[in-house]
């Protein structure tokens, strides 16, 4: 399918207020042509509102939205050419699959023969050939999802907006659709804005992610940046699992800082020394899969001494809960396939960490 050039979206200080509450506040970001960009956040963080602002179903109370450099705030929804796939699909129950998909083309006054061609093409793209005459009620959830996607792709919008498109599917289907969605987006090279509360989805699909909380963007960057360099406690805990425990900065070094835990263990941590001063209290963030366990008797060096308090086997890995001396708990994930031994409840262990993966976060 031939496409016009992918579009670029720019949000400049966009805000949306409902009564006294700002559902979206001062959001500025640029989505580059062909990029897969994800808005990630808990429910109620304003991510769907942001999507609706771009689609034109709500008007911003502050700032502006630009599509390829042109302000679109006063363009009605039906003239924006911005395709939105709704969370609950919003397929019209009185129309067949064919008529649903052809809807936008008819609105664009595409000749009848061409409509038939395009509908057939886009339905085959989503793997739904032969379903033309079904009604939406005769389709499974996954099929409805594909029709919704096909309906939007059929008009070749300048921008694809996806509102939690996989949230109504069961786990297995969700994983499959995730792969298909990624392939489709790559093939079409269409600028895509994806909204989800599922961090795994966001990390798997996106070129870049913006994490939102209470209407504002807290951090944006590549999935790797957001995961390994969270800016604050919220991002660290929302994106992936995180072990957080309080530390105190004791010394500034050239490429990092030296912190001390409550029990007196000192650790070098990579951080910008300019942002910290000695005596500051902070949070140390350790990803569970970046930790290793050794038998207490063998291990030596930088680790903490701990006791195994729980273990869950999750197929591809063992998830341990270990208790540190000062009462804090750590989550440690070890690959199930590997040379390492399996520990039992009550075993004394030493938790080893690679300093590069530790992140120092402000206390609040």
């Amino acid at each position, binding site marked *: 399918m031939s496409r016009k050039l992918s579009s670029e979206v720019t949000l400049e200080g966009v805000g949306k207020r409902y009564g006294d509450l700002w559902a979206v506040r001062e959001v500025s970001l640029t989505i580059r042509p062909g990029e897969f960009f994800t808005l990630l956040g808990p429910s109620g963080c304003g991510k769907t509102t942001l999507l609706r602002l771009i*689609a034109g179903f709500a008007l911003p109370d502050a700032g502006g939205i630009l599509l390829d450099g042109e302000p679109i705030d006063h363009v009605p*929804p*039906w003239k924006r050419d911005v395709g939105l796939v709704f969370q*609950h699909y919003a397929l*019209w129950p009185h129309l067949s699959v064919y008529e649903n998909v052809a809807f936008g083309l008819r*609105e664009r006054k595409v000749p009848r023969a061409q409509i038939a061609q395009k509908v057939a093409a886009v339905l085959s793209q989503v793997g739904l050939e032969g379903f033309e005459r079904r009604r939406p009620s005769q389709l499974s959830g996954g099929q409805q999802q594909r029709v919704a996607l096909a*309906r939007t792709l059929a008009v070749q919008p300048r921008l694809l907006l996806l509102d939690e498109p996989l949230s109504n599917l069961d786990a297995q289907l969700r994983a499959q659709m995730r792969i298909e969605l990624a392939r489709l987006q790559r093939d079409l090279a269409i600028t895509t804005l994806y909204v989800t509360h599922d961090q795994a989805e966001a990390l798997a699909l996106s070129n870049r992610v913006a994490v939102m909380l209470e209407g504002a963007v807290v951090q944006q960057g590549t999935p790797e940046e957001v995961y390994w360099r969270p800016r604050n406690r919220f991002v660290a805990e929302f994106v992936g699992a995180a072990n957080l425990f309080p530390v105190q900065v004791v010394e500034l070094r050239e490429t990092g800082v030296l912190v001390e835990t409550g029990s007196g263990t000192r650790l070098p941590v990579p951080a910008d020394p300019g942002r910290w001063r000695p005596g500051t209290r902070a949070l140390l963030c350790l990803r569970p899969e970046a930790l290793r366990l050794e038998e207490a008797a063998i291990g030596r060096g930088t680790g903490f001494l701990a006791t195994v308090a729980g273990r869950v086997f999750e197929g591809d890995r063992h998830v341990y809960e270990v208790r540190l001396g000062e009462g804090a708990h750590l989550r440690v994930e070890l690959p199930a396939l590997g040379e390492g031994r399996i520990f039992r409840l009550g075993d004394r262990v030493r938790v080893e960490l690679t300093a590069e993966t530790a992140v120092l976060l402000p206390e609040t």
Partner: protein
Amino acid sequence: MLGLLALLVAGILAPLLQVLWAAVSDVDGFTLRHLGSFFRRPLFLESLVNTLASGLLAVLFGSLIGVPLAFLTVRYAFRAKTVLQTLGVLPLVIPPFVGAVAFQQILGRGGTVNLILHQTFGTTLPMMEGLTGVVLVQTLHYFPLIMLNTAAALAGLDPSLEEAARNLGSSGFRLFRRILLPLALPGYAAGALITFIRVIDDLGTPLMLNYTKLLAPQAYLRVTTVGLTDVDGYVICVILVILSIAALWGSKAALGLAEYATLQRTAEAEPRPLKGAAALGVWLISAALLGPALLPHAGILLLSLSKVWSLSLLPTVYTLGNYAEILFRSRSFIWNTLRYALLAAVIDVALGAAIAWLLLRGTVRGRGWLDAIATMPLAIPGVVLAVGYLRVFHGWDFPGLGQPLTATWLILVLAYAMRRLPYTVRGAYAALQQLPVALEEAAQNLGANRLRTFFRVTAPLMARGLLAGGLIAFITSAVELSTTILLVPRIELGPLSYGIYIYMQSAVGRGPGAALGVVAIVLVGCGTWLAHRLAARGAGSIFRL
């Protein structure tokens, strides 16, 4: 929006205010003198008391029949229950004034039952005399409204509410009194309310039974005999409106409870199966309660087929001549009915859809007013609206018609359309409310503007609800008498209900009148059945408030 509002103001608000103003003003301006003198006239006072009594008694007796039937049909499963449910709707299918004639024939002074009583016991029962007759006919006509609304409320209850009470040790009558009754109250109150309002508004029944000591017939008599200048007619109208509003206000507290009763429903309650003696018992009770209400259907059918039926148990000479009379010689009645009612229904569907859309999706100011005025006809007695129309549209040539609006049949269409507007507004409102906004947003997102979205997505999806509402508007307009009788400009422009009224004035006309009655029953019956099919909900849902 403005045009719509103007139409509603002209068709509903202005006539009402005109009536009100006429009642509280004289040449010098505002006065309460007329209202005061109303309460010094014994005839009017008696009519007021009688009207209140007829309304309350009809509700009381209607409840005694309707509530037990509602309970039996909702809580128990037994053989041929649907038959019972269908029979329960049938009384509504016969227009009350037609029913009045049939009851007269069966229960009246020289009717079948009294003839039997006279032959066997040498005595008669004055069942159809005076107020007794009016209340009897109205009770047996309107109790399904109470039954259907109560049944709906009961069926809509979350079964876990009852299970929780049982779990905590409540059972039997205590359970009924403390849990079920309070929870079903909103539905019951809705049924009782419409029954009351319709009863005090009913002009046809008292006129047919020749009993005029009620407010509606009094207003009618003042306007038709004394004329439009008579202030007493307006005063009576105002009193009627006050009664309606008082009833609305009185039941509001109970209606307000409707919200929690159906909150968080998990599953449909399983009716308890009944077999053998218990099922038979239920059938006997139901038959005793329902039986009398189905008498008029048989009576009117027999009457329509009879050449002579006077002072005999059953007709003595049968004929099809009555049908020939109404189908060939005086066919204007049926033709007019179809024409007026259809036109009114089409107007209502269009207005209903537009108003519902504005209320739920629009952003224009003044929507509250639109809603208030469009719902108003529910509480305005037909007599009052008709009197208002006569006052507003009489005596001046309507632009483009060359004669007053009241001299043409258009006035009837306007009256029907305005009176039945609440049905389509509500139908459309309910249909639109169930429609996720996302369906419309999806259309806009794909390039359809508001108008295209409405015609390609919104309207088709609302079609069933709209059509069901339109059908109800059609059938109720087709058998409307309260406004018709006051507004028919000439007899050849009269619809079926007017024809029945005219025929029934003479002894020889009773046969053709009854035949028209049968046509009315068939029309309403088919329309009701179709509306149910369209609404695709439980029996009687379209008669609920």
